[in-house]
């Protein structure tokens, strides 16, 4: 699962019947500082996300489990709209003890 930003939509009238009335969005994967991280990709939307939304998405086989038809040919599905990201980056607590 990764955080991503919705940067557009994809319209495809001719497509696999199992993803017929599902919205396809273009998303740009982000890291924790909301900087671009990797190439944009197309993902099926399951939570009514819109442009400029920060979302998180799952990949691989698990993305099909978020869809009505679990056997649909999909490898990325948006499964949540992010409200907030709390970063408490205090490095590794007891780092010397753990990695002695």
């Amino acid at each position: 699962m990764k955080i991503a930003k919705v940067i557009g939509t994809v319209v495809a009238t001719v497509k696999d019947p199992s993803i017929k009335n599902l919205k396809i969005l273009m998303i740009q994967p982000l890291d924790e500082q909301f900087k671009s991280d990797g190439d944009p990709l197309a993902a099926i939307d399951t939570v009514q996300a819109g442009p400029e939304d920060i979302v998180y998405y799952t990949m691989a086989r698990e993305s099909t489990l978020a869809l009505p038809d679990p056997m649909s040919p999909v490898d990325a599905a948006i499964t949540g709209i992010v409200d907030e990201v709390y970063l408490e980056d205090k490095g590794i607590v007891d780092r010397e003890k753990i990695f002695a």
Partner: protein
Amino acid sequence: MILARVLGNVVATKKHPSYTGHKTLIVQPVDEYGNDTGTSFVACDSVQAGPGDVVLVEQEGNCARQILGTLKDPFHSVICGIVDRVKLEG
């Protein structure tokens, strides 16, 4: 499984129904010496990990579903352990 350190958590009210009740943490992979490698990603927590912890993250859906106990939910990466000690004898 990989080693990672917890950076913080991700709050999302509008999400897939099976995610309710699971904490989603943002983690940064680390190598065997604790240095950052790769880029951060989001994982569901199953062991009450918090920021600053070194954790074991399972990045494979089937194990994720077995840990979280549901066979048809879209979980991909799950935190399944909090690391106390890494002993290298190589």
